[in-house]
């Protein structure tokens, strides 16, 4: 997706050569790589992609260049609001949204129809449907559900969708205290451990990131699957999927009485504070996120655009009809709270989630209390007055 736009940009701007460095697929590992360059004040790297959870950290550390001078409020209004908010920190904006992602539920339409089931609206319904289908299909390789439960950032996205759709939260952004040990949050985690892991999902999901969990689904070996929007095109491509045309996609379920919640994901373009060519870097950012380029990238990759106008674009909707139904999900997707200490908080939460899911005998209440205490210690750092 990058080669053609880069070539076009270079043609429009004679004398400019853009060098693209390929990073690891995992957001966690890419974070380590990019922050390493920024810590070293590397002037070679002019711009970089930023996961939706990084802007506050990069802004606070003084690594990302504030874009307010280039990126006007009027222009910001052309984009979906949630990712713009994720790019703001203390009144300034630090990135331009390139793609938007939100958690979705994929399911095997053919299997649900075969057993006269309607797509689940609650998590318990999903578990029951999956169990029934597994019992009747009698295929030892078939699993009821696949998602991302490895000890990494994706685990936070998956788990927050359960917790928030049960009325819980990860932490209270106003009072700056962890809420992981609140009853709603604990109850949701207990549900995942007792009803999903080792039940409708095999324990192997505890080592799965997106690619492995998607392969299980596209091989036709999973009834339900949680993933980002890109999975729709992959799963419907007969070259890469055995279930092309046999799938459905809906917003994620909730717990009874709650509201379904999709974690907001996505990637931004940002400029390094140490770049010596910030003007030129901005020209490329503006080019990549322009209406024309967003449309072209959307049409060629199927990834969800960040500009509002494209969700009313006939040509886009003709080719990607699913965007129409995704619109509501994107508008309501919930970002992980923005904070410069996101990574330490995430590591504490990953440790907690992974421990209680992988070790079925652990005392969830006790672990949740410990995790909350550790998170509060980190959050307390934000209350401290600046050094002289």
């Amino acid at each position: 997706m990058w080669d053609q736009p880069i070539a076009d940009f270079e043609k429009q701007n004679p004398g400019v050569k853009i060098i693209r460095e390929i990073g690891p697929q995992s957001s966690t590992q890419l974070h380590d790589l990019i922050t390493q360059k920024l810590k070293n004040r590397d002037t070679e790297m002019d711009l970089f992609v930023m996961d939706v959870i990084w802007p506050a950290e990069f802004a606070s550390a003084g690594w990302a260049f504030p874009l307010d001078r280039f990126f006007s409020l009027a222009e910001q209004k052309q984009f979906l609001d949630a990712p713009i908010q994720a790019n703001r920190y203390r009144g300034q904006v630090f990135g331009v949204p390139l793609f938007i992602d939100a958690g979705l539920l994929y399911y095997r339409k053919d299997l649900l129809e075969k057993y006269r089931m309607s797509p689940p609206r609650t998590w318990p319904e999903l578990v029951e449907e999956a169990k029934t289908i597994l019992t009747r299909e009698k295929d030892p390789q078939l699993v009821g559900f696949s998602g991302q439960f490895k000890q990494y950032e994706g685990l936070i996205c998956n788990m927050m969708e359960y917790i928030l759709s049960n009325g819980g939260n990860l932490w209270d952004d106003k009072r700056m205290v962890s809420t992981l040990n609140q009853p709603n949050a604990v109850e949701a985690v207990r549900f995942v451990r007792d009803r999903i892991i080792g039940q409708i999902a095999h324990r192997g999901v505890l080592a799965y990131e997106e690619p492995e969990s998607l392969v299980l689904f596209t091989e036709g070996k999973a009834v339900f699957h949680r993933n980002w929007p890109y999975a729709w095109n992959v799963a419907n491509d007969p070259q890469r999927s055995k279930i092309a045309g046999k799938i459905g996609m809906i917003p994620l379920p909730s717990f009874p009485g709650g509201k379904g919640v999709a974690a907001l994901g996505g990637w931004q373009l940002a400029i390094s504070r140490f770049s010596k060519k910030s003007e030129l870097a901005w020209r490329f950012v503006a080019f990549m996120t322009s209406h024309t380029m967003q449309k072209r990238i959307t049409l060629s990759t199927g990834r969800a655009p960040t500009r509002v106008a494209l969700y009313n674009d006939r040509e886009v909707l003709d080719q990607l009809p699913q965007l129409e139904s995704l619109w509501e999900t994107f508008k309501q997707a919930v970002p992980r709270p923005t904070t410069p200490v996101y990574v330490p908080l995430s590591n504490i939460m990953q440790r907690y989630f992974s421990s209680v899911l992988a070790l079925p005998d652990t005392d969830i209440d006790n672990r949740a209390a410990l995790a909350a205490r550790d998170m509060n210690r980190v959050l307390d750092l934000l209350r401290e007055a600046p050094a002289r």
Partner: protein
Amino acid sequence: MRSSHRLAFLFLLPSLIFVGLFALYPIFESFRLSFYRLILTLPWLGQKMVGWENYVDLWTDPVAAESLRTTLFFVVTTIPLELGLGLAMALVMNEAFRGRGLLRAIVLIPWAIPTVVSSQMWRFVFNDRYGLFNFVLFGGDASRYLAPLADPTLAPMAIIVAEVWKTAPFVALIILAGLQTIPDELYEAAGIDGATAWQKFRHVTLPLLRPALLLALLFRTIDALRVFDLVFVMTQGGPADATNVLSFYGYKKIFAEGMVGYGSAIAVGVFLVSLILSLAYLRVLKASRLERTPR
């Protein structure tokens, strides 16, 4: 006399500069940073001198304690396996037979492959659906397949297997070098005295191999204490922190979380544990050298 000293110093200078710049300076710097609270993502908090606070925290940090246990478990399980396998491989390679040169080259392949590459390979081997591991154990019976990298008990074992596979050849190489220093006459003499093959091994080979074995032990212990790349590629410390070895924990603190002070304290901790063990080994090694010097 003085001028020859000066000349010697001159010759030593490049090595001294090199060691100073690339070994001593980073160690010193880590020591210094470990007494500060320095959080890269919160620059307004500044760099605050906190004395022993990071070490007190480290001492009471349950994650660090668990991490130390994981690391020590890794050390005490991998090393006997590596030494045992390495010794067996070295004994075979030491015999004269056709194709010995080829075998010696082949045995070294796992050691020559970059760890990042071989870890990726082992990750595939232990894949829960398509991995060779499950196929070998259970054939086509997918219902019995295990997910080693998703299981807190099996994941450390998977890392151990990958480590032993990779480093046993290295141990074999050191032991082979040791074997070749043992003069044939000793075996001949033992043969004349009527020693069996086992007795020759037990009373000639093993005692004379002691320095080589201790050397291998030293290298492997220090290396195993610092294990990082296997974990980084195969598990990222999971599941449930079961493979969160000390180096990986320190790495995450410094490089992912930006907690430079606390992460440095972890690094110093790893350094001290390695140093103490190395000194202990060196004493034993020295003692065994002295034993061999003729009186």
